[in-house]
């Protein structure tokens, strides 16, 4: 299933949920349905962002991105004017304005590091990397 199919699925679910909302008077059921809607909206927002970033990265970003050594990457820790970068699978991403990286930290991890193994242990299979801005690659 590609992203466009997922978007259609979410839209269909939302339409069904709205139909149900019209017919229910029970506040608990209504809460559940509203939660479903919110989840759909959140999914759609992620998918749309992913599509937009996919379009922009297809053009030039990764090919023109710079190469980083581990020492250079360590400087991009999100402090004192430096943006916050992390590397996953050899690609360097900008997480400076990623909501889950508040204060350039995320679940005990700090920006400026290669977080490949931690990413694999927590987010394997999740459509996250496609939404991040790529800024370069790690040197081999």
């Amino acid at each position, binding site marked *: 299933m590609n992203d466009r199919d997922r978007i259609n699925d979410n839209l269909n679910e939302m339409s069904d949920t709205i139909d149900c909302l019209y017919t229910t008077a029970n*506040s608990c059921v209504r809460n559940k349905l509203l939660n479903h809607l919110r989840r759909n909206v959140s999914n759609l927002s992620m998918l749309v962002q992913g599509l937009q970033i996919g379009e922009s990265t297809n053009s030039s970003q990764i090919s023109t991105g710079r190469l980083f050594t581990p020492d250079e990457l360590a400087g991009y820790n999100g402090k004192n004017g430096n943006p*916050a970068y992390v590397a996953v699978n050899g690609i360097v991403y900008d997480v400076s304005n990623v909501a*889950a990286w508040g*204060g350039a*930290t995320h679940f005990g991890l700090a920006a400026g590091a290669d977080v490949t193994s931690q990413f694999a242990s927590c987010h394997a299979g999740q459509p996250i990397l496609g939404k991040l801005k790529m800024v370069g690659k790690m040197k081999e």
Partner: protein
Amino acid sequence: MNQTDSSCPNFQARLETASVLVHRAIDAVRQKRIQKRNLIWLELTGCSGNIISLLDGANPDFKSLASQMVNFIYDNSLMAAEGEAAMDQLFRLTGGDYILAVEGAVSTKNDGLYNIIGRRKDRPVTAYEAIKKFGEQASCVIAVGTCASDGGISAARPNPAECVGIQNLLKRKVIKLPGCPCHPDWFMGTLAYVMLFGEPELDDRQRPLMFYSTLIHDICPRRPYFDQGIFASKPGEKTCMFKLGCRGPVTRVDCPIRKWNERVNWPIGDDSPCIGCAMFGFPDKMEPFISYDTT
């Protein structure tokens, strides 16, 4: 920008969830449509903050819960009995029907000797022994607060007493209500739902969706500042505290709607970042609680 939108039907409905459920349960008990269940509240390795928080409940309040909804059999902070008499009251329920609420993690080092919750027949009763004995037999187990749900502060590095959340020791489903402390509504609403309808709809970490379905960030009254890139540089400023290390974007609970202390305020409403107290991994994985000079 700190006020929750009172006209939003979603927020209004959520605010009433616990109250509707508790009053419905009380009516059902009064009309003998459901049984008034026995409730055991174990305070294990923690600070007892969750029972104190429960006393702060308002519409529904603790008095309604304890007098009209359940038989509150045991809680070492609130009961009149003490010493062996109190422990007898607890052990009398062995083999009977009861719902178990647990706050605090469980110390496992040296067979649990770092947390003794009472003495019975001249021998200490450890938290470890109590959770094993009463946890497996209960009709329903509710972990109240972050320590019971996931170890929390009691299990924070270096964790000298080797504390764990209660799920680690029980081979059964445990409904988890993380939060430091747990909001009175989260517990009372969940308990009422269990009595009325059985297990509520849970997420993949066994948290009730009626309270834990949305990220704080998604319903934060300061979200427009985040979207516009307007960030606070120090606590006390009225804008988004993302750059200070706010954990709202990774914490899934409804604080922005429900607020605390009879719905008066909540951390972000008082210009302090969310520290992720209701998220698994708190506190170690939510640190640092504040960061300065973030770009």
